[in-house]
């Protein structure tokens, strides 16, 4: 698609084509250079033109079919869409119904603890030492609304940093498995950490 219908793309490449032709000194190497460059250039132009075509297919209003107007129309279309989005989101925000989560949340909490028991899941805290600096913790607690956040907050305050984490919620319980490290590289003791965790859990 050398003679691109999208006018003037070739015009923009004048410099680059010229560059390829400048290396016209040697024989074999150079024919390679030239052809490589030519092909690369061709592919590049092809890529660009295909994408422009796709762009044009997306935009509903098209005026002229040349390269610059495609971009212009795309710009106006995007601006239009952004305005739409803004209008809709404003509309959404202003008609925001009062939040009804309050009563629900508390009901949730009561329920999860009960649910856990009902399903035979027991709260648990385990701490194992992997390394001098690494611990592995496992926590099972009833799941409540912002509990995980609070746990993380407290842990970070205590100087723990969770590296690899996996959290799952199931049957009203939350399972947290994580590798924990001291934030400043200190040594951690498993038992001490366990006590600490138990206390934390009681508190949140």
């Amino acid at each position, binding site marked *: 698609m050398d003679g691109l219908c999208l006018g003037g793309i070739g015009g923009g490449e*004048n410099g680059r084509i010229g560059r390829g032709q400048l290396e016209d000194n040697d024989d074999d190497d150079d024919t390679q250079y030239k052809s490589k460059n030519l092909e690369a250039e061709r592919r*590049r132009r092809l890529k660009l033109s295909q994408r422009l075509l796709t762009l044009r297919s997306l935009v509903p*209003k098209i005026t002229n079919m040349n390269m610059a107007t495609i971009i*212009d129309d795309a710009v*106006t279309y995007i601006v239009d869409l*952004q305005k739409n989005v803004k209008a809709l989101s404003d509309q959404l925000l202003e008609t925001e*119904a009062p939040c009804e989560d309050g009563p629900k949340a508390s*009901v949730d909490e009561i329920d999860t603890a009960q649910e856990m028991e009902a399903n035979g899941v027991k709260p648990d805290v385990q701490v194992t030492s992997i390394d001098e600096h690494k611990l592995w913790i496992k926590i099972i607690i009833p799941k409540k609304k*912002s509990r995980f956040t609070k746990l993380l907050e407290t842990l970070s305050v205590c100087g723990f940093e969770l590296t690899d984490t996996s959290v799952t919620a199931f049957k009203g319980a939350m399972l947290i498995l994580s590798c924990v490290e001291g934030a400043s590289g200190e040594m951690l003791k498993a038992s001490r950490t366990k006590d600490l965790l138990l206390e934390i859990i009681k508190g949140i």
Partner: protein
Amino acid sequence: MAVAEYPPKEMMEDTAACFDPNAVAAAQVEGVAFSGTDGCHQQQNVAASAVEEVDLHRHYQQQELMGFAAEDEGGGVDDRRSISRVALEEGFHRAGSGDNGYGDMNQVLPYGAGHSSSTWDYAAPGTEGLSHDDDGHHHNIMSQQVADPLQFLQSQAPQTFGNDGPSDVFASVPAADLLNLFRLARCSSSSLLPSSSLSFANPNSPAPPLLFDPLVHLSNLQPQPPFIRELFQSLPNCGYDLPIPGSSSLFGGGNNLERGENEGDEGNNLGMAMMYCEEEDGGHQFVENNNGVFTFGSEMMADMDDCHVKVKMGKRRRGKVAKPYTTERDRRSQINHKYDALKKLIPSPTKGDRASIVGDAIEYIKELLRTVNELKLLVEKKRWGTERSKRQKVEEEGFDGEISIARPPGNPADQSYNRTLRSSWLQRKSKVTEVDVRIIDDEVTIKLVQRKKINCLLHVSRVLDELQLDLHHVAGGHIGEHYSFLLNTKIYEGSTVYASAIASKLIEVIDRQYTTTPPTCSGY
């Protein structure tokens, strides 16, 4: 021509102002002027001189009209103007030949002379400040509305001058329009626009077709350009931004008419304006007039959307053949400007080369479409939700304790609306963070990659709480240099959070934390 002989100061005295932007009148006066030139009577001296000055004036006024803001842009030529100029020159030629086919014009002259004293005198103040210099000065004259001469001119309307163009057309334009034309040409206020009978808002009115016929004579053509410019200045956004630089004249200096230069700028704008007219009116009649010549002065085109309307050469056009761009370099710089504009719009641009800009634009457009759909759905749901809750409030009162977990049963009617699955997906990247948010119905899946520095899990969790997302599953950790997390969350019932809000909030929080945290010397 006799006109040239007139010393400038005489022009100061008179009239011509009274003929003002009304080229029709001017055209009439042209006839009058020439007859006056032919035989200058003493008593009619005032009238004659005034008339001749009017004639010369008319040129300037045409310029004025064409170059509304009096910016001396190189004039473009379009068919109409070429035609009008031709008409002008024809008129001049006729005058120069001293042809006496204007017998009836001599009749006019006494008529004109009879009124002349009053009208000219009236108009006299208006001519102050007029000079032979090109543009800007006409403003003074122009701004002085002269009612009387207008009436005088209007009364001339039914007269036929024995030459073709002006009279026919002039006759067909109702007098009231003339007044509008006068005023409109001078005031740039948009309030006048509705009053104009040439208003674009009314494409079905019979009057415009006449005016936009390419063959319509000079007299009717000239008032047009100011309309267009004002129209665009005054119109609210019709979905297409048409930033027209206030300073540059849309229709270039009318100097072209006299000098015969065709640099094409004006034609561009004219054509472009025409083009936009076309767009917004959905194919208004004057589409076919869109034959503007386009050249792009670089400063002019920086902001404007431009239509690459190729020039259809008016056969009678003179001067150099105007190309769309003066140089290849201009063209390239234009295109680069546009690519830049596109790039600015895209939220997370990656590389700067054209292909990737276009690629990103494609993705962004798709994303915007998804967002729009999502939001529409949400709004719908919300509306239904509020209605439903109103309906069910009566029922719910008895069920306080049991509502919690089970979703309130919807009416069958609601079900049909709720069946449309809400889905959306978008990605956002910033320098250190990458967020991918997918929403299906009420489940949100978030993928987060952050170049490790802070304990982002904490912040993410906070954000999720704020957005009322219920964390169901998290997996991730430290991978190489990055923190990577996959989070599965559920949207609480009744919350109307949407994808882009989530994504942008997350990125915002994380970036903020990233920048505010001093670099920690971690063991890694």
